[in-house]
């Protein structure tokens, strides 16, 4: 769950853009080359790389970034298929499992505070907010959760496909 907090500041579009850039230079490259190719300094690229590795879309070994089979599938997929692939990767993550369990054993929508508190117990309070934000962003994208920022209520949703 600790790695998951790094995904709070990264978007799906950035990860796909990164994977495509590595693919275009032949499927493998070092971080400096990629940084040049995508016009992003290594500091900003770092979290995107970590997130892509976390999702199993690239491997990083001896400084070389290499795309995986899963990346190739993702690159050729349409919008809905991409969501399905990402959903399969993330619905098994501990943060999602925790929230799913909480939602199942609660008859009312989960409040933000309640979830952040539960996350704090696992990852510490300084990371809990980031994990919560990652959960909301990726959960919305993968159509696993619904979040209302006005009422600060989180619900689990039944995805369409």
């Amino acid at each position, binding site marked *: 769950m600790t790695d998951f907090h790094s995904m709070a500041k990264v*978007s*799906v*579009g*950035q*990860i*796909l*853009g*990164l994977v*495509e*850039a590595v693919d*275009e*230079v032949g499927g493998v490259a070092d971080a400096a080359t990629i940084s040049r190719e*995508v*016009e*992003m300094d290594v500091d*900003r690229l770092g979290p*995107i790389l970590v997130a892509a590795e976390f999702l199993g879309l690239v491997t990083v070994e001896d400084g070389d970034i290499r795309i995986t089979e899963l990346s190739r599938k993702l690159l050729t997929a*349409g*919008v*809905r298929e*991409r*969501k399905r692939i990402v959903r399969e990767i993330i619905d098994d993550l501990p943060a999602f499992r925790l929230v799913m369990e909480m939602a199942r054993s609660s008859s009312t929508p989960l409040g933000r505070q309640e979830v952040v508190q539960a996350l704090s117990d696992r990852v510490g309070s300084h990371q809990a907010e980031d994990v919560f934000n990652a959960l909301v962003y990726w*959960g*919305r*994208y*993968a*159509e696993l959760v*619904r*979040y*209302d*920022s006005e009422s600060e209520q989180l619900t689990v*949703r039944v995805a*369409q496909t």
Partner: protein
Amino acid sequence: MGDAQPLLQVKDVSKSYFDQGKEFKILDLIRFELAERDFVCLVGPSGCGKSTLLRIIVGLDTPTSGQVLFEGHPIRADNPQVAMVFQSFALFPWLTVAQNVELGLEALHEDPAKRRTVAKKFIDAVGLTGFENAYPRELSGGMKQRVGIARALTIEPLLLCMDEPFSSLDALTAQNLRDEILQLWSNPDLPPEAVLMVTHSIEEAVYLADRVIVLSSRPGRMVAELEIDLPRPRNRKDPEFYGWVDEIYSLIV
């Protein structure tokens, strides 16, 4: 022979601004056509009149001389067959994603249930399902521009016009959205039929377009109209790709 008629005809469009009796020519005799299935990019240096030309093409501005015809008729700003996406997203911060998208439909459908159904379809098409009740402040730049695109698509336009839609996004996000625009354009079940996009990025134009129209610096004149015959998906590292970029670059500088 209605089928043979081009979707869009830009006929000798010129535009000048006048200040204290002095004429400032912005655009000079722009002439081109766009057919169904076309993806055309307009490139040129900053200030050469690209935005002005696009505004004239969608009927938001009038030419000093010349005319723009859509399906053979003079263009009007309220033509539901033509939609526009701006660089600046143009979202209302107090409305949710779904409400911002539905806004595109107020003039078209009185029935709110119908508006909701149509908006849902295009929210889904741009990958925003799951974010329906999010507010713009909760979205990244790429997601915001997806809202702008979904809103433009709700009117099911034949022609989608875009003015530097990706220029405020980071390079990774921009590339991802380029791919998604290509997916929408090539999907026969979804609008648009044709795309006309303004960009100052030559690389972006070569990545996206079937045809690139190159404008000179002010006043904007047509320097070249080039068919980019590279197969898709295009690879930006391909030497042939770079050949096109270099060629257009040499035309502009």
